[in-house]
């Protein structure tokens, strides 16, 4: 991968339906927007018109949730060609999806499920990422997911698995700081150790989000403010990876746009004053 392909976009937020009207009308200050790819892989109508307008005023990146890169089903070429068409139309700064599987047997769980961390899975996923990159004609980003189960057959730590896949597939990493925190709680590992082990040259974007505390586990619900521990991890990550583009995710109980913009501004502030844990 060539890092110069990934421009320093700054601090962005997700483009979500409740904010369409105000963004199209006022074009508020924001460095960039991340869009859920599948929401715009439709034939026509308002979402595409909104995205055309947003794209004319801001940089965007496309973030998928259904590539199912770790599934044992064949890659969905219809989906990938539709994604490629959307990429050509809207020219995002980059395209990302998750290091996970979402379905099998032709069915879709509409969720992001973890993989067993083995050399065999690394080989399986690497081959598929290379295929996707060939079809999309670009380097993609893969994101670490939150998880609630781990597999007895795993032989690698999650960070070793993520690093091996990214290195061997020659792709970039979208590092979700909240997902690391959630999974660290759910699986009893040190989140700092995770961040310190990921290859610095491959991380080109951060995600920040809130989660919900269910007592016995944390849920990556994207419906709360970012907690202090995740902010602290973010500052640590900035020290390790630099001031790379950061995206605030908020998908449920979505607040006013101004609230999201304030969180993005807070990320910018912390980016300038980060310190290692």
């Amino acid at each position, binding site marked *: 991968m060539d890092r110069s392909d990934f421009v320093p976009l700054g601090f962005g937020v997700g483009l979500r339906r409740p904010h369409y009207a105000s963004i199209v009308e006022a074009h508020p200050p924001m460095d960039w927007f991340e869009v859920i790819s599948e*929401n715009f892989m439709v034939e026509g109508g308002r979402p595409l018109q909104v995205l055309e307008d947003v794209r004319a005023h801001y940089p965007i990146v496309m973030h998928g949730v259904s590539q199912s890169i770790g599934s044992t089903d064949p890659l969905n070429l219809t989906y990938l060609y539709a994604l490629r068409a959307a990429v050509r139309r809207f020219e995002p700064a980059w395209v990302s999806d998750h290091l996970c599987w979402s379905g099998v047997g*032709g069915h*879709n769980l509409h969720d992001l499920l973890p993989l067993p961390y083995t050399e065999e899975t690394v080989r399986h996923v690497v081959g598929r990422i290379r295929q996707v990159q060939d079809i999309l004609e670009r380097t993609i980003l893969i994101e670490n997911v939150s998880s609630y189960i781990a597999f007895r057959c795993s032989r690698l730590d999650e960070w070793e698995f993520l690093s091996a896949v990214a290195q061997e597939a020659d792709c970039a990493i979208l590092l979700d700081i909240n997902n690391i925190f959630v999974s660290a709680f759910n699986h009893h590992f040190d989140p700092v150790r995770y961040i310190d082990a990921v290859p610095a040259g491959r991380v080109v974007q951060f995600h920040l989000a809130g989660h919900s505390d269910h007592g016995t586990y944390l849920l990556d619900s994207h419906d709360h403010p970012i907690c202090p521990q995740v902010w602290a991890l973010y500052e640590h990550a900035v020290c390790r990876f630099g001031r790379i583009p950061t995206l605030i995710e908020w998908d449920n109980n979505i607040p006013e746009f101004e609230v999201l913009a304030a969180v993005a501004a807070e990320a910018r502030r912390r980016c300038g004053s980060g310190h290692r844990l």
Partner: protein
Amino acid sequence: MNLRALQDLLYQRITAPHGAADAQGDRCGLSPSVVDTHGDERLSAAERVGIYADAYFFRLLDCLGEEFPATLAVLGPDNFAALVKGYLLVYPPAEPSILYAGRYLADFLSNHPFAERWPFIAELARLERAVLDVFHAADAPVLGVEALRAVPPEEWPALKLRTHPAVKIVHTEWRLGDVLQAVEQGRKWSDPEHQDASVLVWRQHALVYYRSLERLERDALVIVSKGASFAVICDAVAAGAEETNHVALIGRLIARWLADGIIAATDAVPVTTMRDPLCGA
């Protein structure tokens, strides 16, 4: 266990008929040989799988509730949840976008016991699905009044008209528009009248509208939806009309269709509007 077998097994457990409940206890089939709990006392392997089972069901329940608000309002939350539970067993999502998860809900409802208590419910769901389909239907140039006026009169009989891709006609035996409107406006709904009342659903300026169609206009639009010459459309309207002034009648219909933007531009007619402008966002 190889990756395929592992994914098949997890898929089965997550989508089990009773979801999280089936994922609890011994029936999970995943513990302790597959799922590693790291000796965690907080959550068993089955409970961990149950988190995914809950997420699967409730994510789709929320999504379908947003796409079928009137169906949800008529059935009530508990019945709607039971409906979705049964629906997902018969029609599990198979497409990358969750937008299509409810594609077959109306078909499923037509043979569901709820259709005995609420005989209009399947058609109501079909109408709600049509609204969503029209919202995302393909963009295309629409035929405008000025463009039509520019066509020389002698060319009108052969002029081909076709409905815009973002137009659907839903044939129903109930006046469902009233239910849909009541739910949209947060009003109390009442059982619709049993009456032949097809509904036109269309998109204009990126917003979706619907209205009931009288028989004459419905029959004419069905012909237009397949693509027909102006002469054929006029003959059909004249044959079905009680009104004797056919010219005035056809003029009113065409004027309304053009005003609503439901006729697609054709090669024979210059385009006046290349696409819906973004307004009313």
